[in-house]
């Protein structure tokens, strides 16, 4: 027995959007994690790597920050098959998001690492810390706190640009919604509801980030 009956339009819409939401989350979560991971690796190499490694990684970051994400997705999905490499829409989207997000994340990580003053290294070394212990106990904990705000912002961008996945036929929120909108020719309502979905996702992410920033907060840190 159904207590609440929705009109067929809303029934279809919510059905599609909930399906799309699952796909969006399935895109965003691994892309955000992968992006942060790539960002940490690339950012660390850009800050401390040997010159030749630094230039390779800097070229990667410049390439992915310098070209539109849509173009990157097209190359991954429609271009790579020319080289005999076939990616599913989902894989193409996740790989594209990871690489793009990683390029931006590497900027924040690199900046955070380079902003740590020489005195912090000297203080640790003078107590007998090894290079690894210095990195682990002093540099990384400080760099995380300096990078968290920028990295969090990038994840919020990622939530929104994940909507580009539908361009390579990966049916997430925007793609599912667009199908319904075209079917019923009711664009305003559909996209208003889609906007609400994204707003909710972003708000949740912001809440989580605020929480993390609060946990990591240290009085007076980063103001010098």
């Amino acid at each position, binding site marked *: 027995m159904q207590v609440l009956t929705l009109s067929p339009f809303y029934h279809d819409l919510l059905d599609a959007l909930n399906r799309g939401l699952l796909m969006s989350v399935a895109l965003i979560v691994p892309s955000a994690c992968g992006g942060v991971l790539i960002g940490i690796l690339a950012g660390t190499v850009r800050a401390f790597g040997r010159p030749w490694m630094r230039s390779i990684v800097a070229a990667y970051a410049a390439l992915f920050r310098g070209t539109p994400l849509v173009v990157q997705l097209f190359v991954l999905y429609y271009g790579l098959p020319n080289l005999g490499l076939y990616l599913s829409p989902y894989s193409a989207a996740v790989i594209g998001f990871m690489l793009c997000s990683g390029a931006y994340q590497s900027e924040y990580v690199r900046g955070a690492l380079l902003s740590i003053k020489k*005195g*912090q290294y*000297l*203080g*640790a*070394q*003078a*107590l*007998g*810390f*090894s*290079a690894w*212990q210095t990195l682990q*106990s*002093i540099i990384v*904990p*400080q760099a995380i*706190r300096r990078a968290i705000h920028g990295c969090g912002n990038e994840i919020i961008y990622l939530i929104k640009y994940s909507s580009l996945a539908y361009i390579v036929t990966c049916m997430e929120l925007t793609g599912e919604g667009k199908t319904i909108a075209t079917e019923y020719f009711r664009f305003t309502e559909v996209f208003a509801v889609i906007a609400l979905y994204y707003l909710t996702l972003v708000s949740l992410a912001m809440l989580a980030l605020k929480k993390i920033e609060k946990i990591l907060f*240290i*009085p*007076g*840190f980063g*103001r*010098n």
Partner: protein
Amino acid sequence: MNSSEIPVLQADKVSKSFSGQRILNGVSVGLKRGEIKVLIGPSGGGKSTLLQCINCLVLPDEGSISLAGVEVDLHNKKSLYQLRQQVGMIFQDFNLFDHLNALDNITIALRKVKKISRTAAEKRARLELEQVGLGDKTDLYPAQLSGGQKQRVAIARALAMDPQVLLLDEPTSALDPELIGEVIAVIRNLAGKGMTMLMATHQISLISTLADEILFMEAGVIVERGAPSLLLVPGCGSKSAGFCDRLSELADGECKC
């Protein structure tokens, strides 16, 4: 008292160049247990570089460093880490870890480097903070401490490692005049307890009252060395006496303003 004849720390003919320029030129310093030596001389003379060469924060190009008669292998990282555990260093600008409170600035090295348990490390850290009069500041972060308090935490942090020797690089130079006294008191207290120290300082009171020997350093060479009672006699014509005269004139000048 034969063992007291072996220097706790001996730097021998240490030389260092930066980009082709000789900053230290064959400098030798030895410290016996309980001895206090003070490095003075014009800025840029190489005092900081010498101190950093002694605990190998800067690797000497030539020369040797020995601890209790045993030469340190400068090409072995492990032996450098060992050396630094035994030779404490106090910097002009403190170099406290900005993300750790006063207590953890001390416990982190005890736990990570000395592998002491957290509880034992905290107990020791509290004790050291009490010794420098900061028993009630354990939970405060560097940004919440005054310069004098930061330097006292830095001293407590170095002492918690049980160093054989303490190197101090102008420990009061970055402090506001009214905060210098509290750090000087801590250093005097250490001297009273027989701590072996090599200190670069422009603080007349420390030079004249604490030094067993003054080392006057200029252009990477120790050009004058001797007891304050010999070198600081007014009008004796020594570089050290002239230098200290100029320092006290500067200090007096400041007071008149």
